[in-house]
């Protein structure tokens, strides 16, 4: 397999929620791909559809309201959208794994950590008894959990937030997925712990050549960790570029707003710039660009017609009527 092979290719993904108050177009036409060993970042304000995108890939969109209404998710050429839930079990775990946002609630409170890691191990290797226990301890050691011999028997409530997230990563390690999705893996953690968890994920990536989708609203994390970045706004990917282009040559007003709202270390700044206005209500979207009400560059056309995806350079795609002038 060549290093440049696309192991995941998402085409025109639309995941909607059919609620009592209307249709929420949580992901509306997502197209992107992931190469072997690549780290793809997804940024965007909360509610922009980052989590729903990752849940769609795993085919775990919350039922019954949520549904993938259109699009393809090609994993090594196989369309996951067409798979049954039973068939998806072959992909979850060993090929796709996701670490979610809140480590506090993502482990089952009534089973030991060891038991839960063991389940992940047994997905790959049918170990039992002492062999399994040894392996679990080994996994805990890999994520630098101390006194792992006793911690195997601990329950989640006896673990701190950072330790729980490590336990989740050790599950990922046990599964050895080809694609690891990390949905804001550090948002709920202390800053110092955040750095440790990210370092751990980088180790995983280097050691196992795991492709990673890292969701975050922290551009600093993106800068350090990712090769390629998607910027999402109101269910749409508004700009995508390699990480260098994104920071230095971005052309979308929303991306620019995000980057300008970053604090610059070492530079004198009177105050942080913020993007004015509120994130849009996905229930009341017009046909136009959803960022238009908050955009400094908006013209009449922006509120009527959604801009097409255009290329601004190699691997740099964006949707904005006025990107050439920006």
């Amino acid at each position, binding site marked *: 397999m060549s290093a440049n092979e696309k192991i995941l290719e998402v085409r025109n993904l639309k995941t909607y929620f059919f609620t009592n108050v209307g249709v929420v177009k949580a992901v509306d036409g997502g197209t992107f791909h992931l190469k072997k060993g690549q780290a793809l970042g997804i940024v965007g304000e909360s509610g922009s559809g980052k989590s729903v995108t990752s849940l769609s890939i795993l085919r775990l969109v919350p039922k019954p309201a949520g549904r993938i209404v259109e699009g393809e998710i090609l994993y090594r050429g196989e369309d996951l959208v067409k798979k049954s839930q039973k068939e998806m079990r072959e992909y979850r775990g060993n090929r796709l794994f996701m670490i979610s946002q809140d480590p506090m609630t993502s482990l089952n*409170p009534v089973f030991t950590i060891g038991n839960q890691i063991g*389940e992940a191990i047994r*997905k790959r290797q049918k170990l039992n008894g002492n062999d399994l226990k040894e392996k679990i301890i080994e996994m805990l050691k890999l994520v630098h959990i101390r006194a792992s011999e006793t911690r195997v028997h601990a329950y989640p409530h006896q673990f701190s937030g950072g330790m729980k997230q490590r336990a989740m990563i050790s599950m990922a390690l046990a599964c050895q997925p080809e694609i690891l999705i990390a949905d804001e893996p550090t948002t709920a953690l202390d800053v110092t712990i955040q750095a440790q968890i990210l370092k751990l994920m980088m180790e995983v990536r280097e050691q196992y050549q795991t492709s990673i989708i890292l969701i975050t609203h922290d551009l600093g994390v993106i800068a350090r960790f990712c090769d390629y970045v998607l910027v999402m706004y109101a269910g749409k990917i508004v700009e995508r570029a390699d990480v260098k282009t994104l920071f230095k040559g971005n052309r979308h007003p929303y991306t620019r707003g995000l980057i300008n709202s970053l604090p610059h270390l070492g530079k004198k700044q009177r105050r942080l710039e913020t993007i004015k206005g509120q994130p849009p209500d996905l229930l009341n979207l017009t046909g136009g660009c959803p960022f238009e009400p908050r955009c400094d560059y908006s013209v009449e056309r922006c509120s009527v017609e959604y801009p097409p995806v255009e290329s601004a350079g190699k691997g740099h795609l964006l949707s904005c009527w006025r990107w050439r002038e920006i």
Partner: protein
Amino acid sequence: MQRYLIKRSFQSLIVILGITVIVFMILHLTGDPTDLLLPPEAGPEERELLRHELGLDKPIYVQYLEYIKNICHGDFGQSFRYQTPAFSVVMGALPATIELTMAAMILSIVVALPIGIISAIRPRSYYDTLGMTFALLGQSIPVYWAGLMLILLFAVTLGWLPSTGRGGIKHLILPAVTLGMFSTAAIARFTRSSMIDVLDADYIRTARIKGLSEHIVVLKHAFKNASIPVLTMTSLQFGRMLSGAVITETIFSWPGVGRIAVQAIYNRDFPVVQTVVLVASVIFVGINFMVDIIYTYLDPRIKYT
């Protein structure tokens, strides 16, 4: 844990003692048992003699203290009516009641859990609608009416099952169904709602992300969490069944404690009534005690100190 057990036993004792006080007081407010024990033509002297003999002429608190003292010596009093120890009257009927209650409980659990779990996995499906409609009926139909209808259908019309008395499994079916109906419905509905809550949890998603089979996700990861509130609900149903047994036993002439209790109340047979209540409270308190211990096995976060 050991300290908890001691503390808890002590609390249980207080609860049971409290119950005896209340029952003792209420009973003595209901009237004079000698009314029913003496022939109508008996004169006042005869009545006084009997009252003295039964100890009813002493102040009520003295009667109560003597009662407690006697219990501590294993003496629960003589049945006014049968002239035999009240304790043996009740104990003689207890196995029948335990048999009926256990049968009803096992039936409830065995029927309710699958209905609740399957309804929760497919909410708003045909199965769910059907299951929950039955559950609603089960909770709204009065026990005596359900009992009579079952007798009418299965004993009188079809002649498949006996309608009275205690014997083998065949005798047990109708009373157990009658007694268990309400609890089956209650446990099924409660299991459904607990499971629906739990199935939404993040850790269930984690289990699915690992690629575990739906069986393991539902029966291991979800059910163990849902079983905690379901257990609470089920233990409450035990209390309900002990009282439901009174009606059910009367309808089906089931020779259990419930029937004895009804007769004893009619006859103002104080020692028997008191013993029934005492035994029932000990059983109920004991079950709750046991349930509290089971919690610690189901949920590691529960720790008693």
